[in-house]
């Protein structure tokens, strides 16, 4: 594969370009894997952190808050590191490791991801996770409603009797979503005040 410039990588992430996404996994995953598994991350955790790093960077590109101080590779690694430290802090009985990370964190300050950005990202991840667990019809109704599709049209599309049924169904779907979200043990962590 040809060498990619940092700009090409950033544009590729912004465009969700499969070639660039595959490139990230091919080139950086082994490094992240070594880095994090040396600090107690399991295979699944490494995969999760890697994925969230790409998504966080995508969000920053979209918001126009991405600033590279050195090169993309270092930046990317520092984001994964930041996420892993945060993840460790949410776990119990990892106090010794957290101390290690507090020390190591100074070496990885390039990520420029603020705690506020991270918290919002994880909050939305939680909400989106449970949205996907709703029935297909619920997901569609909530989406149509978000896009301001008229109730009459939603009724027709969803095969419901009338506008009143749509309202009732929409409300029930939202109730279920909120219940699922609130039942998650991480809800208080991300939703509570700092």
């Amino acid at each position, binding site marked *: 594969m040809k060498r990619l410039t940092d700009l090409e990588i950033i544009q590729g992430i912004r465009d*969700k370009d*499969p070639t660039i*996404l*595959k490139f*990230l*996994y091919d080139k950086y*995953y082994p490094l992240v894997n070594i880095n994090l598994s040396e600090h107690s991350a399991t*295979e*699944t955790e490494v*995969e999760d952190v*890697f*994925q969230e790093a*790409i*998504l966080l960077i*995508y*969000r920053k590109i*979209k918001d126009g808050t991405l600033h590279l101080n050195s090169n993309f590779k270092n930046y990317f690694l520092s984001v994964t590191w930041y996420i892993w430290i945060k993840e460790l802090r949410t776990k119990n009985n990892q106090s010794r490791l957290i101390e290690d990370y507090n020390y190591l964190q100074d070496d990885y300050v390039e990520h420029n991801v603020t705690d506020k950005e991270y918290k919002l990202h994880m*909050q*939305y*991840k939680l*909400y*989106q996770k449970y*949205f*996907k*667990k709703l*029935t*297909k*019809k*619920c997901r569609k109704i*909530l*989406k149509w*409603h*978000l896009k301001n599709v008229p109730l009459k049209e939603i009724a027709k599309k969803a*095969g*419901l009797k009338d506008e009143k049924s749509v*309202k009732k*169904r*929409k*409300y*029930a*779907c*939202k*109730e*279920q*979503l*909120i*219940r699922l*979200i609130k039942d998650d043990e991480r809800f208080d962590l991300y*939703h509570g005040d700092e």
Partner: protein
Amino acid sequence: MKDLTYIMEMNKEISKYLSGEMDAQTEKEFEQKLSNDTALRNEYELHKEIQNALGEEDIMELREKLGEYGPSTRQKKRFRLKWGDALTAAALVTLFIGIGMLWMYHSQITNPDELYASYFEPYPGIYSQRSIDADSESGTLKQKAFLAYEQENWEKAQNHFDELLLLQPEKAEYDFYAGMLDLKLNDTPEAINHFHTVLDKADPLLEDQTIWYIALAHLKEKNIEKSVEYLQKIVKEDLANKKKAMKLLRRIE
């Protein structure tokens, strides 16, 4: 701590407010309440955040895409490929063994779609009339749902089971039939989701059947590796549908 009824009431009001369904006066009153009631304000913030999160279609799409590039998914794909190679090799060996054998090989149905079609039958609509409280909202709906199911009015039945799941999300039975209907209406990934929810809810009466239908659903998705995994589980653990699973395994492998 606010009680559940209060929270449900709050949620209703918030939904109405956010959808612009309130008249000017009620809206003003609601805004007043919002500034005085911390619990209401917290719920309102949550609603708004959820609304924003659901609007992030690009992020959800990207997360799904990234799932395909992760090493664990790639490993599975590689395995599937190897399995495919093995099948091809087996077919070639068969070819060399003799024309007679080849004829026999081809006379068997090995196409996943055809195999699925020959094994899939919607599970009968089993429910007890006595256990239904016909006066309650869910009771009436349940009657309607099973009636539509028995009459093979699949779309209508799906609508009713979806509603039942909203009223009683804890009932594994409704997820089971919702999954069955998704299979019937060709939404296989959704069917697999529902069936896994049934397994999560650990209803012993539905577990065996659910595993059988998960195996069939994966076959329909042409995910042979997964289908074989569930069929082998049926055989190994001596679950219901063991004979059918053995036959199907022979035809796949």
